[in-house]
């Protein structure tokens, strides 16, 4: 629910309560006012009735519409005006109605009279009806005006906020551009915009320095490794004993490992920095076939039996480079951790899933840990322990689901969209 809708809704509920209380108060005030008027009116009629009695001096009771005059034989209390309510049949309305009644004793020309007057100007019901009707009408007017008004006003009032939101949405950290926020005179939005542009500046700067660092680190590390490797290669060219040649070869292996770690960590950082954000509909079959064409021979040379069942066309939304890296790492992993003898790798594409099964030593500890960096199934192995970390990361950023199952000597990784 939009903020403005919530506010309007709450406002309308509150105003409804106010209107109900206001209505009751209004009815009370009007009723009192009307009663006061009626009493004045009755008092005026009383003086004209007195004049009438003075003229006529009746001896019998006079009962007329709204006037009752009763001559009294004995003396009674006089000038004691009592107001009260009474129900009397209303001649024009033809129904009993609540009237205001005045009762008083009077001594006129030596005789005592009891005078009763009653009348109504406005009925109580009419007041209630009138007040309710006007309140309801005003409330409906308020309701309509507030809803329409709030729609226009919120558009105007919240427009800087909407502008800020769309600026944040369009903000691309990789563009290395400052975020553009429109000017506003609203204090809250000013503060928000200030805060956001400061934050964006800092994020951009951090991102740039991180990116530069990963790029520079890769460059700076690879150059000395290149130099050392070259020296070793030149050394290898000379006349060396067998022992020395082995030393050189081992040193070269370690340097290659070092450079691979550098490259892999750079790759992980690049994925983290979302440099492979753009996805496209990529055909998994094609990448897999291309890959196998290049490496199938190697798998066979290593004495591993390869079975592939690429029955189905599978397409994923993924950056093509990431898919290539993913497949390379998956199969490399399956080769590296295979059995020394009678090993197999089975690759299936079915039900929009990529399934890679391979034989290998059973893993004794929790399999989830394998996806962490530098975690290995066998700590003494010389593998880098980064392959599954890359696989995991690529799946995560590409929205792919990965499942790993190990049953004794069977390892199965399933990846699906």
């Amino acid at each position, binding site marked *: 629910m939009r903020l403005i809708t919530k506010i309007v809704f709450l406002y309308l509920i509150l105003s409804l309560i106010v209107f109900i209380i206001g209505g009751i108060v209004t009815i009370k005030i009007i009723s009192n006012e009307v009663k006061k008027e009626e009493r004045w009116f009755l008092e005026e009629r009383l003086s004209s009735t007195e004049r009438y009695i003075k003229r006529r001096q009746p001896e019998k009771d006079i009962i007329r519409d709204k006037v009752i005059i009763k001559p009294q034989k004995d003396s009674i209390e006089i000038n004691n005006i009592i107001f009260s309510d009474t129900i009397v049949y209303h001649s024009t309305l033809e129904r009993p109605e609540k009237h205001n009644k005045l009762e008083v004793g009077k001594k006129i020309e030596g005789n005592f009279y009891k005078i009763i007057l009653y009348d109504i100007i406005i009925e109580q019901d009419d007041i209630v009806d009138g007040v309710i009707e006007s309140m309801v009408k005003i409330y409906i007017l308020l309701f309509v005006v507030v809803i329409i008004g709030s729609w226009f006003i919120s558009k105007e009032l919240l427009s800087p906020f909407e502008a800020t939101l769309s600026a944040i949405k369009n903000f691309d950290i990789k563009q290395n551009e400052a975020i553009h926020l429109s000017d506003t005179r609203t204090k809250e939005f000013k503060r928000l915009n200030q805060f956001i542009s400061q934050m964006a500046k800092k994020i951009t700067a951090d991102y740039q320095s991180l990116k530069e660092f990963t790029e520079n680190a890769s*460059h700076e590390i*690879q150059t000395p490794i290149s130099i050392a*490797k070259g020296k070793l290669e030149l050394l290898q*060219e000379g006349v060396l004993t067998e022992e020395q040649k082995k030393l050189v070869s081992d040193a070269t292996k370690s340097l*290659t490992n070092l450079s*691979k770690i550098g490259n892999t960590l750079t790759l992980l950082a690049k994925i983290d920095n979302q440099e492979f954000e753009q996805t496209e509909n990529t055909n998994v079959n094609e990448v897999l076939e291309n890959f196998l064409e290049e*490496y199938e021979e190697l798998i066979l*040379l290593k004495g591993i039996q390869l079975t592939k069942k690429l029955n189905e066309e599978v397409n994923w939304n993924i950056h093509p480079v990431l898919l290539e890296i993913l497949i390379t790492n998956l199969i490399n992993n399956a080769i590296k951790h295979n059995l020394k003898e009678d090993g197999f790798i089975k690759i299936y594409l079915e039900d929009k899933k990529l399934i890679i099964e391979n034989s290998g030593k059973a893993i004794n500890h929790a399999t989830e840990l394998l996806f962490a960096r530098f975690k290995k199934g066998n700590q003494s192995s010389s593998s880098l322990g980064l392959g599954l970390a890359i696989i995991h990361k690529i799946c995560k950023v590409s929205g792919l689901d990965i499942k790993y199952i190990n049953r004794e000597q069977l390892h199965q990784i399933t990846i699906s969209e």
Partner: protein
Amino acid sequence: MKVLIVEDQEELANNIFEFLKKEGFQSSIAPDFFTATDKLAAYEYDIVIIDLMLPDGNGMDLLYSLRANRKNIGTLILSAKNSIDDKVRGLDAGADDYLGKPFHLLELTSRLKAIYRTRKQESSNTIELNNIIIDTDKKEVSVNSELLDLTKKEYEMLLFFANNAKRVLTKQNIAEHLWGDFIDQSDNFDFVYQHIKNLRKKIQKISGSDIIETVYGVGYKLKAQ
């Protein structure tokens, strides 16, 4: 073959220089952009090795000017920016090949030779090893005029041997050349033996002689002709 090495890292440039010298190439070193343009104006080169990050300029600019003015010179980009984007950009700009750091000097010479062969237009792109002819255009190998049925990797391995005819190649060299990053350093590279055995057999079947010699404990080399 005359090579210009444009590389600001003195040690790395010296490594390449030394290695190419043993290969019989004439080469000179330019440590920066300025020296490189100077040398290119003054002397003739067959191939220029360009490092992308130079102290006084970008290697890409050197590549652009070479492609615009000196189309007959071959180019190979050398860079630590080993990302696919850079590779594509370098090749799009007209470089003949791209090699990321760190690299094997063996790999570098193989690629330089390949560039040289394609660029020399007057002669046909073939390498002859006694009675074996490798046609690098068609990627075909024939022995005594008979076509040899090799797998893609067997062909690449034979070419690697031919490009480094005088050198001893270790199993590791061969594995890394053929399968690159995919090769795991913890491997024992025994599968290379199997691979070589297959190639030897195929050649022997037609020519009757073995052209690859095992250097005990080190690796393999082509038999002296």
